[in-house]
């Protein structure tokens, strides 16, 4: 029987190659979050004058958002691709080889992580080019790369779960906007303590996405805020564990091979 590492590598390579050959899957996750960030940074610049705003650069404040938004985009694409593989019978083709079940999931997610890291590098370069100073320095940038990989892995597993569960790319595309609601009802545009509307502040406080954004944001504008890092890593790891468990279970149901 074939060993697992080449299988994982081959599946991951295929995932990266096919994504890189679809400009429509590569460009929007990179460009759209940056454009939205630029628009927000232009329109909300005066927010930095509010007493208690944590930085004088709204761009530095907003740079955290693309990290999460880009991950949502790319994992939606990864989930849709996987669902399409199920619909077209490509997963059956893979099932007929010596591929181990878990290697299919891990390989697919490894591809998502590689693409996630590429995105993070892009956002960091955009930030540096725009003059954003990373308060946590080189070490913080390294942590951002690790965090970006974890976010891609967790959201990727969520996409894989939806793909294995529904087997329909259309359903995944219909479901993912729901996840974007979590992004918008978060601290993406203002620190939670400065949100004036009570229900919004409470919703943002209960929303795990707020802590993911604040984790990234702390590395950019604060330095080493261990509480923000702990909460951010904690929530993303929790999401990852739950998503992986769901995806593994859905995979076993989907692959009925003996």
């Amino acid at each position, binding site marked *: *029987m*074939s*060993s697992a590492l*080449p*299988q994982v*590598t*081959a599946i991951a*390579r*295929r995932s990266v*190659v*096919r994504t890189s*050959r*679809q400009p429509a899957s590569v460009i929007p996750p990179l460009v759209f979050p940056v454009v939205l960030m630029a628009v927000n940074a232009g329109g909300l610049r005066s927010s930095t004058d509010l007493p208690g705003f944590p930085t004088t650069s709204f761009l530095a404040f907003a740079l955290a958002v693309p990290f999460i938004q880009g991950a949502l985009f790319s994992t939606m694409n990864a989930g849709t691709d996987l669902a399409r*593989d199920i619909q*077209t*019978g*490509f997963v*059956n*083709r*893979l*099932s*007929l*080889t*010596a*591929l181990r079940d878990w290697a299919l999931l891990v390989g697919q997610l490894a591809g998502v992580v590689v693409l996630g890291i590429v995105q993070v590098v892009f956002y960091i370069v955009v930030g540096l080019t725009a003059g954003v100073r990373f308060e946590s320095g080189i070490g913080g940038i390294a942590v951002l790369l690790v965090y970006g990989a974890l976010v891609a892995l967790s959201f990727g597993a969520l996409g894989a779960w939806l793909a294995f569960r529904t087997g329909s790319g259309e359903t995944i595309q219909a479901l993912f906007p729901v996840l974007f609601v979590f992004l918008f009802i978060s601290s993406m545009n203002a620190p939670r303590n400065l949100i004036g509307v009570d229900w919004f502040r409470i919703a943002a406080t209960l929303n795990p996405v707020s802590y993911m954004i604040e984790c990234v944001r702390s590395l950019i504008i604060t330095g080493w805020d261990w509480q923000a890092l702990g909460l951010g890593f904690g929530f993303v790891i929790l999401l990852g564990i739950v998503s992986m468990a769901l995806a593994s279970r859905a995979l076993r149901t989907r692959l*009925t*091979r*003996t």
Partner: protein
Amino acid sequence: MEPANGIEVEGLVREYRKGPRAVDGINLSVAPGEIYGFLGPNGAGKSTTVHVLTTLLPPTAGTARVGSYDVVKDGPKVRSLIGVALQEAALDPLLTGRDHLRLQATLQGVRKDQRASRAEELLHRVGLAEAADRKVQGYSGGMKRRLDLALALVHGPRILFLDEPTTGLDPQSRTALWEEVSLLRREDRVTVFLTTQYLEEADVLADRVGIIDRGKIVAEGTPADLKAEIGRPSVHAIPRNDADRPAIGEFLSRFGEPLDTTRDVAVRLREGLGLTDIVRAVDQNGIDIVDLELRAPTLDDVFLAKTGRTLEGAAEQAESEQDRP
């Protein structure tokens, strides 16, 4: 000792939760190195049988051994022995032919230093060397089928399952694929389990044919034996005026039992009668026809004799049943 590359199936049943019994207690045996044609209309149970034999679906009841391994207990061992080209080619349109072969070779455990050469060898074998580095989305139907066959062969399987490999192909591509399959059997002694809805394909390629209808095998044997079982030829007349069909049908029924055909009026000749008897009678009675043809029994006749329907009619019926809400 290497496992034998035959197939043994006993009482195989596959039921879908909310659907019909797709495979209904079939028994079959395929000898090592044999090409077995599994013939039947759409929805007869051919693809479900292939899915069970290739370990993609567990059977509801019965046993199946492929290459002496049980498909339920020894799934991974069965998969290591077989090559499969399913009905839907299921290729990634964004990968090239070479990408596909490398991926498949890796997943099938072909040694790293052999993957590139194996891919090259297969690309040449199926005539895709020039198109190897083009994305599959630009391939024709025939090229996709050939790539699919190459993928099925990447690890040198001893048993090959081909599920309707030539459906939708032009005659030239079909013939090329037939030649390749024959070559595999002749040179590599590969056992081939081939499903098809084309009579000619089963006739030309298969050593033995199993005819399946509504999940049951209704006839099995060599094409020659099956046709000999029917024995008598049929006579087909095309009336000059469509309105004369009933009268001509009645006239021809004096020479044998009427056949249910749509294109012409036909009877299966009674023992001892020949075309000359009919020609003489047509002449004497002034029957107005444009063509009269004597046909040797075909596998379609076998299907008709066993099921009361033609293959074409059965396919249309299956389609209308699928369309029904």
